[in-house]
């Protein structure tokens, strides 16, 4: 041990291998995530059309964005879809998790059934539900053929309710994930709490409402953030199920961005719209990240 004189290595070369190995990560973090984001934000203030050009026009793109009916419709759709999707996926997810947590038989079978849509892509999801909601062959046709001639459930061709058609498909795909997260949360609750509540004679629903759900607050918050950041990105589902139609009744921001960037050759609009999306996500994520990681001391 004492043979080799203690040479103090240059601090740059300490852990050199670890640093070399981390180059892809550093590249991704700095160049793609930080650099790319800043780049897009900066170019959202230019009038770039077919090619990005640094010709600043101030907030023009944003003014145009917020006066474009298609963008307004996208935002409205996102709000309706987002709110309902959050509420229903939390409600259904928690309900299913609570049911599965009752020491029931066939728990694995039920869990497999509830979760499998999550393995499928949004494209597959969208196409299946497009077929099921097809007015001439799908559910509407089926109910009418049973004798209820006036039954009308035609969301994909009805501007006013098309977003609910997408919601049904979105919930079908995504509630399994919420159920899974909630179930993990429920299983994380000390068994003794349930026993104590039973000895105290607290009815089951009261135990859930006043003890278990408050204890699961972190799980709910994490789930909320995950669903919310997924909702903002919603794109494939709409493309597959309705292509944004009828008219632009089911347009969403992500689709607006794509269309302006790659079809309408109006990059500036696309950048401005995607910056708005970024802003929306940050409003959700930053407070959460601060609470989760920033406030207390860092772990590891």
């Amino acid at each position, binding site marked *: 041990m004492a043979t080799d004189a203690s040479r103090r290595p240059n601090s740059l070369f300490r852990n050199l291998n670890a640093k070399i190995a981390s180059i892809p990560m550093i590249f991704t973090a700095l160049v793609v995530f930080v650099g790319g984001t800043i780049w897009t934000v900066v170019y959202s203030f230019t009038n770039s059309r077919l090619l990005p050009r640094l010709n600043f026009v101030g907030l023009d793109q944003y003014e145009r964005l917020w006066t474009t009916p298609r963008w307004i419709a996208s935002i409205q759709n996102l709000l309706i879809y987002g709110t309902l999707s959050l509420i229903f996926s939390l409600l259904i997810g928690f309900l299913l998790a609570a049911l599965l947590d009752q020491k029931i038989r066939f728990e694995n079978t039920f869990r497999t059934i509830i979760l499998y849509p999550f393995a499928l892509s949004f494209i597959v999801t969208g196409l299946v539900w497009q077929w099921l909601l097809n007015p001439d062959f799908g559910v509407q046709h089926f109910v009418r053929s049973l004798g209820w001639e006036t039954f009308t459930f035609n969301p994909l061709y009805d501007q006013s309710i098309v977003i609910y058609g997408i919601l049904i498909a979105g919930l079908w795909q995504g509630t399994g994930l919420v159920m899974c997260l909630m179930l993990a949360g429920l299983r994380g609750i*000390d068994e*003794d*709490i349930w*026993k*104590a*509540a*039973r*000895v*105290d*004679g*607290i*009815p089951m629903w*009261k135990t859930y409402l*006043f*003890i278990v759900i*408050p*204890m699961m607050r972190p799980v709910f918050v994490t789930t909320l953030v995950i669903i919310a950041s997924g909702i903002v990105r919603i794109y494939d589902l709409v493309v597959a199920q309705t292509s944004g139609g009828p008219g632009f009744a089911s347009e969403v921001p992500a689709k607006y961005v794509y269309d302006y960037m790659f079809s309408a050759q109006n990059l500036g609009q696309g950048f401005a719209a995607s910056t708005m999306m970024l802003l929306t996500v940050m409003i959700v994520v930053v407070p959460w990240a601060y609470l989760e990681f920033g406030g207390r001391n860092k772990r590891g």
Partner: protein
Amino acid sequence: MTSVLVKDVSLNFGTVEVLKKMNLEVQQGEFIVLLGPSGCGKSTLLNCIAGLLDVSAGQIFINGKNVTWEEPKDRGIGMVFQSYALYPQMTVEGNLSFGLKNARLPRDEIAKRIARAAEILQIQPLLQRKPAALSGGQRQRVAIGRALVRDVDVFLFDEPLSNLDAKLRAELRVEIKRLHNQLANTMIYVTHDQIEAMTLADRIAVMRGGVIQQFASPKEIYNRPVNLFVAGFIGSPGMNFLDGEIADGSFATDGVRIPLSRYETAAPPASGTKVTFGIRPEHVALNSGADWPFSARVKVDVVEPMGSDSLVWTKLGRHNLAVRVPTERMPSTGDMVEIGFDPMRASLFDAAEGLRL
């Protein structure tokens, strides 16, 4: 008067027998400890008494009433859990009152009970705090309080002290004993810690593999263990065991002969019986100069000072033998010493069954 009666209770999880036709009778005001290694079924038995687990067969009576099918809240029990199981987002007062409010007790009655429990447990200053702001010992006190306000005859404790550090454990142990003296309730207490069992219990039920091995006073269990398992489980450091056989009213092993004339036994075992001879380290004297029925000169292998006492390891024949001596009389390694004991204090088990002879 019988307070808790467990009658022929069995419990199976699938094909696994966790409790095997268990019988236990607890008198009013008794402090009973269920003691055993993990997996012996002691907590399971407690959960059955509480009604948190359904028994597969048998009956449970509390205060003479058959409660086998009753819900836990209707059994007249209070329970204290290992993990405290306090409701984290309620204050201490909220924790104590939640069950009572739910049972629709009048407000002033709830306040009275909480005040009494808080006074007994000295947690008045903590009433408005949340569990997260309490120390381990304080949480445990609140958990006891939650059982206390239920105003019941039987208290069930499920390893209540095992999450605490040694010092706090010793303190709360005394407090639980004081509480028992003050309330005179029946208490059933599960632990794997034999010190807790010895210090707290009026009677100990030593369990293993879903069967009660011995149910007796701590003194009886310590002095007259019914089988090898109990003998080995109780006592720290553990009992010395020597394997050998009976020869002419003596115990013989490797040329060592221990006369058994003073050993109390119903029927002296026949010569040639294979037996295990057990003697506790604290019952062996070292260099005492007294005239013991059995004595031998042996060499000291290892000495382990443990504070007030020391453990001296020697060999008797091929068997290791530990002797407990006050530290000031501790010999050195390699010394030749004189050991002696009275076989009256020993235990003799038949080698095949492990039962006390």
